[in-house]
């Protein structure tokens, strides 16, 4: 098994109720690559991730994860969803949610063992939630919930980590810590991260996957701020403001 791609999409088309979301998409992500996925809302990012997870089936084309169908490779994937429609009043602690990353392993039906707990504790510590392990899910802020889901994905100890907007709703200081965490994963596992926050990701990501009905892959340097600015015109003020200030500065000089 020399050099099997972590993710391989071949000529994949997917539509919801007749509307084409992804059109003849080809994409290869090599093992241990760190990929940044961008694109406008509704452009098909989450759909693409769900195809990789085997939660959706393509209308045509092939999806392979580590050379196999997504369903058979699920044990090696850690997933953090973008939105969850979870019941906020569900009586469950942060630790119990993190432990769900250990599901699907042998004997995970009745009780989790010491190794499972250790993995969950480590993951909670990595996202800065070690002190909140015994807190109720309903007591967490939006940002804490996002971090809890990251921890749950890490608890899987995956070979492929899929993060759908991990830093939304998280304040600047914690964002920086999280990106340090992601940076520490470089080379240890394959990571696909959807993010609207180029300021940080651009520092250590080599490949940018642009999803907007079709998929283009660029080296990070090629992604111009005009390109991003067009997509995130209403969203990412940081880029736009940064460019404008710079221009103003030149004008005055």
């Amino acid at each position: 098994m020399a050099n099997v791609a972590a993710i391989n999409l071949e000529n994949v088309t997917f539509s919801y109720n007749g509307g084409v979301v992804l059109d003849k998409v080809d994409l290869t992500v090599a093992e241990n690559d760190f990929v940044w996925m961008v694109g406008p809302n509704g452009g098909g990012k989450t759909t693409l991730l769900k195809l990789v997870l085997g939660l959706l089936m393509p209308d045509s084309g092939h999806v392979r994860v580590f050379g196999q169908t997504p369903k058979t490779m699920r044990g090696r994937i850690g997933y953090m969803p973008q939105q969850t429609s979870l019941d906020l009043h569900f009586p469950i602690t942060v630790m119990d949610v993190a432990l769900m990353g250990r599901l699907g392993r042998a004997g995970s039906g009745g009780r989790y063992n010491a190794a499972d707990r250790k993995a969950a504790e480590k993951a909670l510590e990595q996202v800065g939630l070690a002190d909140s392990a015994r807190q109720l899910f309903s007591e967490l802020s939006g940002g804490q919930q996002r971090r809890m889901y990251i921890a749950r994905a890490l608890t899987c100890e995956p070979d492929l980590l899929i993060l759908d907007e991990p830093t939304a709703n998280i304040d600047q200081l914690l964002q920086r810590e999280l990106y340090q965490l992601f940076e520490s994963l470089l080379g240890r596992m394959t990571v696909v991260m959807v993010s609207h926050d180029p300021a940080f990701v651009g520092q250590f990501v080599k490949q940018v996957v642009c999803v907007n009905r079709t998929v283009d892959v660029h080296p990070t340097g090629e992604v111009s701020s005009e390109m991003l600015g067009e997509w995130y015109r209403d969203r990412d003020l940081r880029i736009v403001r940064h460019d404008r200030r710079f221009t103003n500065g030149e004008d005055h000089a």
Partner: protein
Amino acid sequence: MPDLLSAILEYAFIRNALIAGLLAAVACGVVGSFVVARRITYVAGGIAHSVLGGMGIAGYLIAVHNWDAVTPLYGAIAAALLAAVVIGWVTLRARQREDTIIGAVWAVGMATGILFISQTPGYNQELMSYLFGNILMVSDSDLSILLGLDLLIVALTLLLYNRFLAVCFDAEFARVRGIRVEVYYILLLCLAALTVVVLVTVVGVVLVIALLTLPAAVAGLFSRTFRQMMIGAVAFCIFFIIAGLAVSYETNFPAGATIVLIAGVSYVLAIVVRWLIRRHRNPIAH
């Protein structure tokens, strides 16, 4: 209460009523917590009412065709499991039709029951005890079936606890972890169906929902974990049933209705108590 105690020692049927109540409390606390947390009260309601169909058919076969090996409880088990599988399967296949199929199973089950009961000699009394329960009529053989159902429910829940919890909390993530979500969801509905059967003997078809959800809801107000909620729900359910039996023994009120009213009043009190506790702890925020 002392009267009830002496009655327990004196009369076998009151002893049986109490044992049936305790068995019901265990199933109701364990499965009711999942039902409340997963918000499938109305699925359980549909299953509960379909049970009347099974009991009606079984009663008819016993009275008219002399099927001696059958009891209405067998009919209830068959109907409840069938309803659980039908509702679960249709829900998973066509999500948006969930309420319609629940309504259909609910009403068709009752209609079937009423039809068969009407064709069974001496139907009036039967119908009332199916609808509103008759905990004072629980036989020894009924008790052993209830015990068997209880053991099955508790054993399966302990064995598959983490998976049930994950499927209830976040089905999509459970699926990504390789859990066969559909299988566990339908299995959970089947456990709810068996619990409904246990509860029907105590409070009857119409009042099952109250006993399945209220103890878990009260426990949920004061629990930090799902395990605590389950244990609390069992405890509250035991309390409601014993208190209900005691009051109904003193007053001659129907036992099922008394138990449900005590549960309902306790739920309201619990909400008030929790509100007071929160206000006491954090006077500014509320």
